[in-house]
């Protein structure tokens, strides 16, 4: 069941690129507030082309994060799936909103993602409370217009 119109290749390419940016070595003070690029890209594709990837892609992205971050398998996968599901549910409404409104939505989603990750951290005995971990949703929301515009150029709007 593949639609010729879906930007599958672009989706895979941008996801790989985002994962690379997630792994890029950064100085300590910068690494802690690195925006969750992969989640941003997943959110974009969920809103722009939910049929191209959908929740399966979100799940794979989350699993990749679990492996590379050395987290419990399924932790980030669950968080990304949840965020992707909400984004897909609202995708038609979100497409008609302004960038600012979308950014606010993205902020809420990134915060929810971090809450889920943090909760599972606590359940599995990794609880580290640092105010720094709440910085990246803000940066991610601020970056959303750039990400959305850049990714919008990779495929024809439908």
């Amino acid at each position: 069941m593949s639609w010729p119109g879906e930007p599958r290749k672009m989706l895979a390419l941008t996801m790989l690129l985002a994962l690379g940016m997630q792994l890029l070595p950064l100085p300590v003070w910068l690494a802690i507030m690195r925006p969750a690029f992969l989640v941003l890209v997943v959110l974009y594709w969920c809103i722009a082309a939910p049929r191209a990837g959908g929740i399966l892609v979100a799940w794979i992205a989350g699993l990749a994060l679990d492996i590379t971050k050395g987290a419990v398998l399924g932790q980030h996968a669950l968080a990304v799936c949840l965020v992707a599901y909400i984004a897909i549910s609202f995708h038609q409404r979100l497409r008609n909103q302004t960038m600012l409104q979308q950014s606010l939505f993205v902020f809420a989603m990134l915060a929810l993602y971090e809450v889920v990750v943090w909760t599972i951290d606590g359940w599995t005995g990794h609880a580290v409370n640092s105010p720094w971990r709440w910085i990246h949703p803000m940066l991610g929301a601020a970056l959303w217009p750039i990400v959305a515009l850049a990714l919008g150029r990779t495929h024809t709007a439908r």
Partner: protein
Amino acid sequence: MATFGSNPRSLTGRSPAYGFRFFVYAVICIVLMFYDQRGGWLESVRGAMSAIAYPLQLAVNSPSAAGRWIRSNFTDRAQLTAENEALATELRQLKLKSLRFSALERENADLRRLQEPLPPLINKTLIGEVVSVELSVLRQRLLINRGTANGVKKAQPVITADGVLGQVLRVGPWSSEIILITDAEHALPVEVLRSGLRTIAVGVGEADRLTLPYVPLNSDIREGDQLVTSGLGGVFPQGLPVATVTSAKRDPSQSLAHILATPTSRIERDRHVLFVWFTPTHPAAAGPASVESEQSVGSGTYQPLPVPRATPTTPPAASAATPRAAPDTTAPRE
């Protein structure tokens, strides 16, 4: 545009059942988390998947590696001569230090009433190079380019020439993840070299700091004290340098002292680490608390730190009681 036929995608846009899909994936995630937390067969799955991710990690780190390679290739003659000079000086000093080593070894054997000197504590080493570094308050981890293919196994001690660095947390076919002693989830049984006081050093998530949270107020520890591994806990042998105490504050209203230390080994200095194998029969080798057997079963359960019995009336008993419950805590608390 109107299609008649078997194309299931109608113009009205019959959307797939996203709610159901989400439910299925969420259940898969929870099952994965449950089994991964318990350890066992998922370890091998994770190892295989980390092998897939390893090329990407290498590729992402290749620019900085290339930079280092170029810099090392274009160092000039004067720099190399200076480096050579420094190394020669260091070698001479180390030779002087080890000059009387064999005599002392013999003397030690005599004092211990042994027939022959002890075998060397470290019987095998393996040099690994740091592929990527993750240093933050949340995680202090390293990715090293050595894995099961090189004989590295879980809970293996990793040191540098300056002291204890950490231990192997996860191992893939060609790479392994190291948890540093400064990670907030790592606790290491140590003893004060000067007084023999045993306690536990816990990371706080900063590369240059350890805390000693379980030291009673009246125990014998002060600024400048050397901390070495105590050999309890079953991972590190006794006597490896760990840290230097940088501050020892005592608040009379508290029952425990506030002690901070700086690790002797710093990962910023060097990109090479040393995996070590110890002679198990050596008296200084890690105690019989067999972490390997425990970890192969995979007790991934959260191990709370033992709370020392703070009995100020009998300080020696209190300090001796602290590490007795310690062996489990050397294993990274996952």
